[in-house]
């Protein structure tokens, strides 16, 4: 930028909660007091955690750049600012004990940032900043120097596959759509990110909305669409605001509207808000929802590329897919395909969550071994517990056990062990997670989100859930596992859309790899991970109990009694095994068995 001093204060949700606002005010105040003139204080990311660092556990994070040298500090509080200004800014001596450690660098250094590269670096609400990183250059080049079929060829050659879960080659899909004779075509960006545990699309839209819009312009030109939609979840109000603002700015600059870049090509993009229906992320359901029908899936074929929105050829791609397009056009197909695995090119953004030290949003080259994601980028399991499994692909995916820790993470790799990429959610589970319960959790989700149009999904998921509930409550019967397997296969094979076809995956994969846990629940009425409360007995260890009364306070059925400062007792005939006392005890005196 310039030779001045730039201070970036991370003001994501995490950042603000940790005091980012006050840290920022403190810097401004200190600079004034000290009379530092050539300094600017900026927000690294506003109001929300964008994908900038994906590392909000370390907030408040502060970057201080002096003469081009960037130092990153972690856990900064307002009272620390004075010393930072005195010693680092004025004294040119970084305060080493406050700097981020090696683990911070390991988290970042093992990533390959392409889609996330500009997140947090640029202000998502400023089109100038996007233009400053070559924004809309790709769109201009494409529209003014390339024919639509050449664009499609480049995307085909890049090997880019749909990032929404299916992994269908994007260029091939575009060519299907372009091949149709039609008076009207549509392009849709699917930002209805509903997979529990996935938040990359929200972060990309919040952090770099123009990249998505530019990708859509290029896609629309390639297939000949003059109207585009972004279908986005109402649960993401900030993303909606940023997107609308970005569209407005793009229109003002003439990047959207009529005769773009002096060509005859016109494009209008509209924002369509969801209203809380997971199934609308399925492309045919999404189309129905835009049309103002109930958002229920339709039978395929015909595929949307041939017959989509209002019966016209339509391309639907996911946010991350579109965000890749400008870079492919700028740097070429060969550059894009230079990283990744044989059949999965480029990078994938992954939402790493669960029982892991470094939760956050990461971007890795396709094909990175699972163990590197978990133990290098992720920093390993929280609390040094034992790694048990990783759940990928949300409710459509499966659980991958310890034995496949070397598995390359790409479309084929994950599918080979009965899971899937999905939108890229990755939930790490440790020894304290019960696999039957995990499976029940996902079935609860899919069952409640099933739109009810087709019988196998509507009734099948309900029955699967009933059996799983029974097992976790100690009512499991001999033959339940086989029944689950049979039913799961039936639902998978006969449902109308992807929701139903993939809903049984968590059941199938957990039975495959953790059958012994199911058996323990059914035959021995035990939950090995000590999660399923109905199979546990709660009691208080007298020698550990200090009599603080927190457990009694937490108990909703008054099953705990005891005098103050005296060991308490649980009346097991009254206990409903809710586990509140276990969570409430700060002295590990409540035990469950």
């Amino acid at each position, binding site marked *: 930028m310039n030779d001045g001093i730039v201070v970036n204060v991370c003001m994501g*949700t*995490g950042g603000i*909660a940790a005091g980012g606002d006050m840290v920022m005010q403190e810097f401004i105040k200190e600079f004034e007091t000290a009379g530092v003139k050539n300094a600017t204080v900026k927000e690294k990311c506003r109001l*929300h*955690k964008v994908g900038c660092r*994906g590392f*909000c556990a370390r907030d408040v994070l502060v970057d201080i750049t002096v003469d081009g040298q960037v130092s990153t500090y972690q856990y900064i509080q307002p009272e620390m600012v004075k010393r930072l200004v005195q010693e680092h800014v004025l004294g040119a001596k970084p305060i080493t004990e406050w700097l981020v450690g090696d683990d911070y660098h390991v988290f970042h250094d093992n990533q390959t940032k392409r889609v996330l590269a500009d997140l947090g670096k640029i202000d998502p609400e400023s089109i100038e900043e996007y233009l400053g990183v070559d924004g809309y250059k790709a769109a201009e080049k494409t529209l003014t120097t390339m024919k639509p079929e050449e664009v499609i060829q480049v995307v085909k050659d890049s090997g880019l596959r749909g990032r929404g879960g299916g992994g269908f080659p994007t260029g091939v899909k575009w060519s299907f759509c372009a091949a149709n004779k039609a008076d009207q075509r549509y392009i849709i960006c699917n930002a209805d*990110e*509903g*997979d*529990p*545990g*996935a*938040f990359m699309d*929200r972060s990309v839209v919040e952090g770099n909305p123009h990249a998505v819009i530019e990708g859509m312009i290029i896609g629309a030109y390639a297939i000949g669409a003059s*109207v585009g939609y972004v279908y986005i*979840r*109402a*649960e*993401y*109000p*900030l993303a909606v605001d940023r997107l609308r603002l970005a569209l407005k700015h793009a229109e003002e600059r003439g990047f959207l509207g009529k005769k773009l870049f002096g060509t005859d090509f016109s494009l209008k993009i509209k924002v369509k*808000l*969801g*209203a*809380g*229906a*997971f199934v609308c992320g399925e492309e045919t359901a999404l189309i129905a*929802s*835009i*049309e*103002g*029908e*109930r*958002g*229920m899936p339709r039978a395929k074929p015909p595929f949307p590329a041939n017959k989509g929105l*209002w019966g016209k050829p339509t391309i639907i791609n996911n946010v991350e897919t579109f965000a890749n397009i400008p870079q492919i056009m700028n740097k070429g197909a060969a550059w894009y395909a230079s990283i990744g695995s044989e059949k999965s090119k480029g990078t994938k953004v992954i*939402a*790493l*969550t*669960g*029982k892991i030290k470094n*939760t*956050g*949003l990461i971007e890795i080259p396709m094909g990175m071994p699972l163990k590197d994601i978990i133990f290098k980028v992720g920093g390993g399991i929280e609390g040094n517990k034992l790694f048990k499994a990783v*759940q990928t692909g*949300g409710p459509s995916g499966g659980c991958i056990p310890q034995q496949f820790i070397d598995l390359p993470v790409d479309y084929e790799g994950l599918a080979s062990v009965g899971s899937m990429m999905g939108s890229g*959610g990755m*939930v790490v*589970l440790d020894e304290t*997670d019960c696999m039957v319960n*995990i499976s029940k*959790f*996902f079935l609860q*989700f899919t069952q409640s989100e099933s*739109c009810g149009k087709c019988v196998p999904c509507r009734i099948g998921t309900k029955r699967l859930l009933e059996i799983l509930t029974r097992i976790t409550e100690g009512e499991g019967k001999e033959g339940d596992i086989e029944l689950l397997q049979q039913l799961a296969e039936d639902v998978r094979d006969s449902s109308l859309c992807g929701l139903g076809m993939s809903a049984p995956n968590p059941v199938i994969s957990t039975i495959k790899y953790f059958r012994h846990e199911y058996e323990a629940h059914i035959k021995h009425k035990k939950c090995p991970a000590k999660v399923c409360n109905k199979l546990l007995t709660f009691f208080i260890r007298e020698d550990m109990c200090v009599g603080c009364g927190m457990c009694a306070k937490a108990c909703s059925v008054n099953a705990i009694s005891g005098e103050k400062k005296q060991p308490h007792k649980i009346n097991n005939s009254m206990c409903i095994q*809710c*586990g*509140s006392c276990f*969570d409430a005890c700060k002295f590990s005196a409540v035990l469950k068995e």
Partner: protein
Amino acid sequence: MIPDQLKTALAEHIAASITPREAAVTVMKELQAHYGWLTDEAVAEAAQLLGISPLQVEELATFYEMIYRRPVGKRVVHVCDSISCWAMGGESLLGQLAARLGIPVGGTDPEGMFTLLPCCCLGNCGDAPTMMVGDNLYGRLTLETALGVLEQERESAKM
């Protein structure tokens, strides 16, 4: 009855849509914002504006979780029950909030302040467990911080 101004704005929005039905969800949401929930009167008004039957509006309204066909509190509290939040104690948070507010999940408190709903997913998985009150998102919650948030929201709703 909706004010003429809103009615005109909605009619314009419908006219600018590719088909009237395309505007249906937006119209329902605007009416809901006006009434607080989608009242029977609002259903009839939506039907008239969109040129479809009230039954067709009802059919749409009942499909979407964020269209409320029953009165809700001044603040709708969505507690995320997705996998990441659930793994970090979201389920017990929802249960404890329900107990503290003295309402079942899905219920509204007697003073009409809060409606408590589960939601999947708020997309704040890295900061689980999470809840959203109105348009405000809160992460890394404990029961105490969540109750604190509700107090703040209660105050801001009174203003």
